[in-house]
């Protein structure tokens, strides 16, 4: 059985949702090849359509595609062996060809010579090369940046994701409750592939089970509430260290729950101490991501469980109604608005010779200014979404 993510993979440019700018740029790149650049880097989070965009470009230009990814590229020699012939060879039947190097930021993990070699190969390539990466701005890719057009793929808006899911469900003649669909679309944070996969899994369930998955979420909630009770109410024992072991929840999420509820339990000195512990935990969290050194998790766990409980001089018996973390949702909703604010600021900044940062800072007055005369939005070429944001 093919997965839906495969089955409904976009084929043409018009199938790719929410990436109009990137589509325009890759079209332009291929049209001009090799006058400007010989390679283009498409970067963005997982599931935003980087690889799909490369394949669509091949389809639209009736080209064959030559694809390399993390699994078949390890080092300089291998790269020479496989890629070099491909960029020189005439394509069969005089068709065009597009060279796709997928996940370039992962490919060249250990081997620095690899990036250098790739950079040299780009210069002599007779075919347009498309590289994909999660982040184009890492140090590692610096030698490539000069030789490549760089194009960002944006995180997809949840509305677009939901729309795609609905269309797929309709074709598959399956039904998922609207609430659950919204939840999938928001939770996957712009990763369309993950959303389609979730959708497929849930669609197999009977409608009772679909509701049960919602309950599972709620069970999870009971578990964490239980854990909070342990660390906030009981004296620390070695048992406390295992509080979070039984819970199926990522540390990041646990941190949010604790962050939200500390002030309900601790005041003054203890409050400061508890947040100090949380702050330390967060510091280790950052170090784990940066250095990929997972042993630091041990410290996080100790601070979050035993550390918090150590503030209790004796067991407490009072009842506290803990709250659900809300700030992630708030931030997410707010980001949707910030996008408009930023794009308006960009247009104004360019027009009035100041930096975007400064325009963002002065936004309140700029907003008044733009609203003061209907000719100004026109002059700044604001679109409907931006106008709606200003009016709201």
């Amino acid at each position, binding site marked *: 059985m093919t997965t839906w993510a495969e089955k409904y993979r976009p084929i043409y440019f018009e199938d790719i949702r929410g990436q109009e700018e990137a589509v325009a740029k890759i079209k332009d790149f291929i049209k001009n090849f090799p006058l400007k650049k010989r390679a283009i880097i498409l970067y963005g989070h997982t599931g935003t359509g980087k690889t799909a965009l490369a394949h669509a470009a091949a389809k639209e230009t009736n080209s064959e595609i030559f694809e390399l990814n993390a699994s078949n590229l390890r080092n300089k020699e291998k790269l020479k062996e496989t890629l070099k012939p491909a960029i020189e060879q005439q394509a069969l039947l005089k068709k065009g060809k597009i060279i796709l190097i997928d996940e370039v930021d992962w490919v060249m993990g250990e081997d620095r010579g690899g990036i250098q070699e790739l950079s040299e190969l780009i210069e002599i390539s007779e075919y347009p090369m498309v590289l994909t990466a999660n982040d184009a*701005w890492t140090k590692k890719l*610096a030698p490539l*940046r*000069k030789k490549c057009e760089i194009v960002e793929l944006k995180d997809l808006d949840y509305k677009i994701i939901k729309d795609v899911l609905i269309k797929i469900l309709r074709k598959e003649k399956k039904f998922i409750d609207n609430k659950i669909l919204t939840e999938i679309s928001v939770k996957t944070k712009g990763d369309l592939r993950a959303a389609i996969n979730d959708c497929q899994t849930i669609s197999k369930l009977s409608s009772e089970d679909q509701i049960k998955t919602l309950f599972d979420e709620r069970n999870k909630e009971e578990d964490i509430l239980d854990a909070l009770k342990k660390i906030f109410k009981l004296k620390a024992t070695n048992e406390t260290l295992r509080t979070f072991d039984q819970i199926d929840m990522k540390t990041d999420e646990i*941190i949010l729950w604790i*962050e939200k509820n500390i*002030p309900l339990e601790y*005041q*003054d*000195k203890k*409050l*400061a101490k*508890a*947040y*100090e512990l*949380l*702050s330390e935990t*967060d*510091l280790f*969290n*950052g170090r784990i*991501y*940066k250095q990929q050194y997972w042993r630091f998790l041990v410290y996080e766990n100790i601070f979050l469980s035993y550390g918090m409980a150590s503030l209790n001089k004796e067991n407490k018996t009072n009842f506290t109604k803990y709250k659900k973390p809300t*700030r992630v949702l*708030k*931030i997410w909703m*707010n980001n949707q608005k*910030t996008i408009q*604010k930023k794009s308006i600021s960009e247009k104004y*900044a360019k*027009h*009035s*010779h*100041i*930096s*975007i*940062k*400064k325009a*963002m800072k*002065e936004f*309140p*007055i*700029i*907003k*008044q*200014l733009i*609203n*003061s*005369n209907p*000719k*100004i939005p026109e*002059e700044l070429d604001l679109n409907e979404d931006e106008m709606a944001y200003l009016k709201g």
Partner: protein
Amino acid sequence: MDKEIDHDSSIWTEKYRPKEFSEVFGQNDIIKRVESLTKAMNIPHLLFAGPAGVGKSTLAIVVVKELFKSTWRENYLELNASDERGINVVREKVKNFARTKSLGKVPFKVIFLDEADALTPEAQQALRRTMENYSSGCRFILSCNYSSKIIDPIQSRCAIFRFKLLEKKDIEKVLQKIAKNENLTMHPDVLEVIYEGSEGDCRRSINILQSTAAISPSINPELVSTMLANTKPKDIKVVLDYALAGDFENSREKLLDLMLKESISGQEVVKAIQKEIWNLQIEPEIKVKLTEKTGEIEFRITEGSDPFIQLQSLLASFVLAGLGKK
């Protein structure tokens, strides 16, 4: 029709932006010197230092218009260092622009790099090499708030001009001219309020005037104040006041609100808190303690920690400080 007015624009800062040297108010000495350099059809690299809204960008544009006349757009590139992601982008754009020959009589093109002090010292080193490599076909005009943030090798390659904050009478001239043209009546005290609200920034002064004029063409100080009050971002002080009074939950709610609604980054908040400490009614010893904590938190945020968690930890310290006060 008045030739010096750009009738295409409805935004007054653009409509009335000076197009010739004679129209620039204030900075008389600088104008004279730059004008004579420009009239000789050869300029060195220039460094304009000074506060925001005193005419640095405007003068740069006047220079290129004078040099290139009708072909100025083809021979001029404007970049803003604080928006460009890394020096590589700057170099890339600079290179692409400088590579092609200039059009017309002038043997060079001009690149205006605004807010150059936003570049790191390393990036400035790279910029310096770029300036050298393309010096034959390209002149740079750099602008910055503080010339001390520009590395010496770049300073030594530029003619430096230090712009003064515009005086009230300069801003007044600009606003009077606009008022006359737009048929506004201005109460004599209006200037004071606008000058205060704009901190001497000419562009902001004009924006304030235009936003107020949209309410009524007869402008009085109260009207300006009302308009300004609407645009003032919520104060960090409220957040700290709650914390000092021991109300942690309200304090952090306000903080999150502030950060989200005004899109203020964690780093900006820490900076504001650090400054606000000096206005608080607390013992000197506690001020120092809070500053220490603030410094540590700022460090953690720059290291990539979650700003909101770190700031909550900081607010908890303010709660403690508030206890000492009682």
